[in-house]
């Protein structure tokens, strides 16, 4: 009797375990999308925040802080900011600011009542800094007034040409999208012809032993870590591009294309070859019996009947190239600009995420997740294409 329960238990156990994959995928979708859509939905903070440096005692809008906290949040609808703190010998610094909430230009939103005793500067967008010379050198007293950033427009995000995440807080990713697309397409144009020639040769002309050797080599090529490809590209391909074209720096779109083409070779070759091997022998025999040569049969029969597998391989190659990160960072140069020639430095979506996540904070960090969402949507579209092709293959 016990055994029966054990059996039932294991049945449910395996079913539960298998749900982990589904849950993981769901969690990935929810978390990345939720974080990535945040900048387009809400403002960065409900109201104005103050960050205070080297000031011991401060009164804000009548409220006195003896131990000034790291950050002071004002009420959402605060119409004015009045700052008072003791300075020097029984003196007092006074700043009165009117908040003009309807003003769209962040720089003009704060109106100083009279000329403030402080030096006013605008270190980054949405930040106004008031500075007074310190009692000691290097101990300048500062109050940073941080205005909330309004929701970012998705159109400006996708179509924007400028990526100035820290100073101007402008987040336009169009150059990166273009960079990703160009690098991937370039890699496909360079890599796919070679890959198809190899696959057809391995499937149709090579004897078993050399074919097994070639397959082993291609598996090894697939196993080399992407960082090693990037390193190899930096050491060999980048200097080669520099010397051949006589340009100042070899970190260019072309270098990225060459490295990516190398990296997608194994993917395309493996899938194309296996779908070519699956073409039924009777089709080839029919072609040969009609007097076609072996080469004609290979090109007209095998390649034609394997086309859906070949296309699936190419699409998988594209999605590999789109998602590749470390190899591209090392060779592409990474300037966030729109490229007009293959000899310019380029930055991809993935490179932006990996390079800037280390120091990004606030909306900048959220925007990196938004880039992840863009990438995710591109990959999901490619994946669904592959799934559809696979289904088509099963039917045939």
């Amino acid at each position, binding site marked *: 009797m016990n055994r029966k329960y054990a059996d039932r238990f294991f049945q449910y156990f395996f079913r539960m375990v298998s749900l982990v994959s589904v849950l993981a995928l769901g969690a990935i979708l929810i978390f990345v999308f939720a974080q990535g859509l945040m900048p387009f939905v809400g403002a960065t903070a409900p109201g104005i925040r103050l960050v205070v440096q080297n000031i011991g005692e401060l009164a804000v809008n009548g409220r006195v802080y003896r131990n000034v906290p790291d950050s002071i949040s004002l009420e959402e609808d605060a119409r004015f900011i009045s700052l008072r703190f003791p300075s020097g010998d029984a003196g007092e610094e006074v700043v009165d600011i009117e908040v003009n909430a309807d003003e769209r230009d962040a720089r003009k939103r704060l109106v100083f009542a009279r000329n403030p005793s402080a030096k006013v500067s605008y270190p980054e967008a949405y930040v106004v800094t008031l500075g007074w010379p310190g009692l000691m050198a290097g101990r300048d007293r500062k109050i940073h007034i941080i205005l909330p950033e309004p929701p970012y427009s998705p159109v400006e995000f996708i179509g924007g040409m400028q990526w100035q995440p820290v100073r101007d807080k402008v987040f336009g990713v169009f150059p990166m999208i273009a960079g990703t697309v160009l690098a991937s397409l370039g890699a496909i144009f360079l890599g796919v012809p070679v890959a198809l020639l190899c696959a057809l*040769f391995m499937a149709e002309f090579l004897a078993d032993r050399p074919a097994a050797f070639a397959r082993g080599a291609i598996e090894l090529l697939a196993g080399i870590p992407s960082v090693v490809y990037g390193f190899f590209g930096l050491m060999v391909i980048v200097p080669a591009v520099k010397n051949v074209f006589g340009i100042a720096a070899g970190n260019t779109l072309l270098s990225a294309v060459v490295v990516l083409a190398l990296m997608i070779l194994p993917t395309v070759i493996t899938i194309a070859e296996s779908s070519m091997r699956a073409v039924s022998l009777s089709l080839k025999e029919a072609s040969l019996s009609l007097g076609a040569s072996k080469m004609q049969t290979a090109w007209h029969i095998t390649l034609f009947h394997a086309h859906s597998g070949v296309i699936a391989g190419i699409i998988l190659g594209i999605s590999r190239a789109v998602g590749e990160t*470390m190899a591209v960072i090392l060779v592409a140069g990474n300037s966030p600009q729109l490229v007009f020639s293959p000899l310019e430095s380029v930055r991809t979506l993935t490179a932006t995420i990996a390079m800037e996540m280390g120091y990004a904070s606030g909306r900048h960090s959220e925007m990196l997740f938004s880039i992840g969402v863009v990438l995710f949507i591109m990959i999901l579209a490619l994946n669904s294409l*592959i799934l559809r092709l696979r289904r088509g293959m099963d039917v045939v």
Partner: protein
Amino acid sequence: MKKRVFLDGLLYGIMALSLCGVIAVLGYILVYIFRQAAGSLSFGFIFRSAREGGILPMVVTTLYVVVVSIAISLPVGIGTAVFLTEYSGNSSLVRILRVAIETLAGIPSIIYGLFGLLMFCRFLGFGQSIIAGAFTLSIMILPVIIRTTEEALKSVPVSFREGSLSLGTTKSQTIFHVVLPSALGGIVTSAILAIGRVVGESAPVLLTVGLSRNIPRTVFESGRTLTIHLYYLTNEAVNPDDFGIAFATAGTLVMVVVAINTLTKILTRKFKNSQGDAS
């Protein structure tokens, strides 16, 4: 006719040349890295601390990440493969499961990194640590383990299961005592393939494990894996000596990859032979 023969020969030549070219590129990469690394790559290099120009902390961190992520992923992956081969009919759950696994396999590693950073580092509060990275990577290698194990389970002959069931065992006993042991070779292969993925992965590791150069004592500390060390040396360091270390690190990584490839080849062959004998 002559023109045909000539054209066929030309095409044959082009195809042979492109395959030889691809293999030559592989050979060039391997030879180039090993020749440059030859000066500094040694046992001492692998077992010296970072301050003395070695990579011991990176080796230790990589091992930690590999062990923890395999320990998490292997049971789940095997369980899922067992469910897919032994229990599933053609229910909607199975269809959803298959799509989920396909999709997981296609997600680029940097997105796993973003997810891991959000979920394990921030939401669950692990911070940048080995455990956060291992959790992230364990999801990433799940499709590899599931697919390979599933192949192995499928290749266990049905007669084995029938023989066991006819002796009066229950289904779960058959799975644990007959099916899984017969598929052991394939399961080990899947684990080795997954180890290869984990060792070579870099983008998600950079986001979740971090850059700390110390030898980690527990899995809750940050560390630096071999791949990240190589990235850091080439991209951010300025010291000219670093390139020697970078080559040696790249050489170490390639050696690991070659070893893993050879091991899976040997195992697959052995596994196929033993299957052949049994059935």
